């Protein structure tokens, strides 16, 4: 009998199709690798090692501030994941390859986005309306409802982002940032990108990572910090010329019945700034 089972088995083991019969990756493993891909556990110091990347600067007695653009380097992530997998097998290309298809991280981002929206709308909608609202809000943020498979950008690790260092970060606590990219069909810059990370890391530094190439950034003053602009209505001051307002007279004159009406009329229009990014300043690796 010439047939040797052992040599045949080892032939298959060493063969090209290595992924054959791979048992499903446990959830703890895929979750953790997804988190690593999203740089979730990585200390800030390892992300940006020197303050000189983000100078505040002053010019003509006014603060300069800076917006610094970047792209995510997938090879750095690959090394990070490789290091984590080295606990079991340094040469494990199989699971590293799986992780680098971006599917674990895509899943992590999807779960994060749904959790965030759920927190906002919980208790405000009836169960049947809840899913609908969840779907709407997710799609408004560039996330496909109940679709955890990585998008083309996610599987190619096309993430871009920026740091902002400015006093607006502290003045406008909870500043809103919306990033736009090119539309899939037309060349227009009107596609809302999924913001996968938006984190304030110090009182005047915030950073943001988006899926895909950022072409335009919109920075909006948060609604809860909008101030009261008295030039918007007729004001009446108390006698004494020391800036004290006669609120009851103002209310009478303008027909305010309560504080909400007063606030509605006095609140300044949220400040909004649009920023189109010149792609030329970003070089390509040579």
């Amino acid at each position: 009998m010439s047939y040797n089972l052992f040599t045949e088995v080892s032939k298959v083991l060493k063969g090209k199709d290595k992924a054959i019969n791979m048992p499903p990756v446990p959830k703890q493993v895929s979750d953790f690798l997804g988190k690593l891909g999203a740089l979730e556990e990585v200390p800030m110091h390892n992300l940006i090692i020197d303050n000189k990347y983000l100078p505040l600067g002053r010019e003509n007695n006014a603060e300069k501030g800076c917006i610094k653009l970047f792209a995510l380097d997938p090879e750095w992530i690959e090394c990070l994941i490789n290091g984590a997998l080295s606990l079991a097998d340094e040469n494990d290309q199989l699971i590293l390859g799986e992780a680098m298809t971006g599917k674990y991280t895509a899943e992590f981002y999807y779960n994060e986005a749904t959790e965030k929206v759920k927190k906002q709308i919980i208790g405000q909608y009836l169960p049947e309306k809840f899913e609908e609202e969840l779907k709407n809000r997710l799609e408004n943020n560039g996330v496909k409802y109940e679709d955890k498979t990585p998008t083309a950008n996610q599987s190619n690790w096309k993430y871009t982002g920026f740091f902002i260092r400015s006093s607006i970060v502290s003045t406008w606590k909870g500043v809103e940032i919306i990033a736009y990219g090119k539309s899939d069909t037309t060349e227009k810059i009107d596609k809302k990108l999924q913001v996968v990370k938006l984190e304030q890391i110090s009182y005047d530094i915030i950073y943001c990572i988006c899926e895909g190439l950022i072409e335009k950034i919109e920075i909006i003053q948060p609604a809860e910090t909008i101030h009261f602009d008295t030039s918007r209505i007729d004001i009446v001051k108390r006698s004494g010329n020391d800036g004290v307002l006669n609120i009851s007279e103002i209310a009478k004159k303008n027909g305010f019945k309560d504080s909400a009406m007063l606030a509605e009329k006095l609140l300044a229009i949220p400040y909004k700034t649009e920023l189109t990014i010149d792609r030329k300043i970003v070089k390509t690796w040579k």
Partner: protein
Amino acid sequence: MLSKNDRNEEKVLKLQSFARPPLPGGTYVLKTKLFTDAGKDGLKGMPSKFEAKEIKFQITAPRFGISTELIHSVYPLPGSTGDYQNTLPHIVLKRKTFCWERVIDGNKTNFDKPWVCLLVFTEEEVKLEQIKEMTTETFLKEDADVKVPILTLNEDEKIAKTKLKALELDMNLFKRVAPKLDEINFLAHNRQVNTNNKGNNDTNGDKGWYTTVVANRLPIKGITNYAFLVSIEGCTTYMEEPMIANDSRKLRLCLLHQWQFIDMDEKLEDVVKNLNNNVKPLTIELKEGANPTEHIKRCLDFGYAPINHIRRNDEKSVSWYRGPFVPLNAEHHAIKTYKNADQALRFDANTNMFDISYASAWQLGRLLALQDSSFSIALSNWKNAYKRDRPIKIAKDLLLKQNVNQELLSSFINDAESDEVLTDYLIELWNKNTK
């Protein structure tokens, strides 16, 4: 729920004039009475009345101080200088019902009046020395010169002797600046905002709801202005009294929060404009006059930073490092594995320096994995199962194609050399077939 005004249906911002808490703070008594007429129907010996019970309970609400965690933001920013002439200072708090958690004068019909107000004074009117720390007991001790809020302490507060910050103001200054009783309603409201495009969760308030208290005074230009959030519980009589000439009395108020700012001509618009002119790739910015060599400049342009590096042999040197963020359009190449961090070290011959970026990432990944025991355990179990089960599965597939009989199996087992797992499996199979 109790929304009086739900105007502005747009999702950007909702305003509400007040939010009533389920119960305002204070001492409550719950009385129970139980009686039955069962005795009449022949159930003899059944008492018709039962002992009445009284349960005392407290609803605690902030009174003499608030936690800084409750404060979301203040405007103008503490210590800032800016153009605030036409703006009213305000404070944003993270709890929806905050301003209505106490009843200002104990009169239940005044539940819609906030118990706090925001007072603005200049440094000429108020000196910071007028803020004193004292216990609630001393705070409420009135004398001829100093008037105090009319409050009753509950038993817990009497025992606790909480320390608070008291602000002593000239009575006439208070009357001149403080809002009147019919004005305070206008100075506090709720806002709900859409929290979709925001960063950290902790700034999101009470499901997107915030309470805002607005001052009734415009900042005075050119000097330091103080904003004081004070409790006006028990102060209603002083707010309504007309001013008395040459009033030397003082009023003691409980100070909850304070900050200061200077009204000057720096505009936020300019800050944003400057920011827009400073969009750059993420690289280190050198000081003016620095003149790096061509090779070093190239590394800096690629987003590297020089950092101190102590080698294994204790030798001190400088190496290049960058994080995962690069000022370039990065591409992903083929999968490559490193057996240890050192393998991922790279050397830049032009500058004679190591690039430790990938080696650090590798090491960091390993350390993070070690920290997470549920991951490391799951990973090694999975790996072992994979190593054990895969040859068996392949063997099974191959055996299906063969005509398996005992003779063939024993010949396979005789072939066995090193693979114990597979041999064990084959022996098991042989045993099964013999039975």
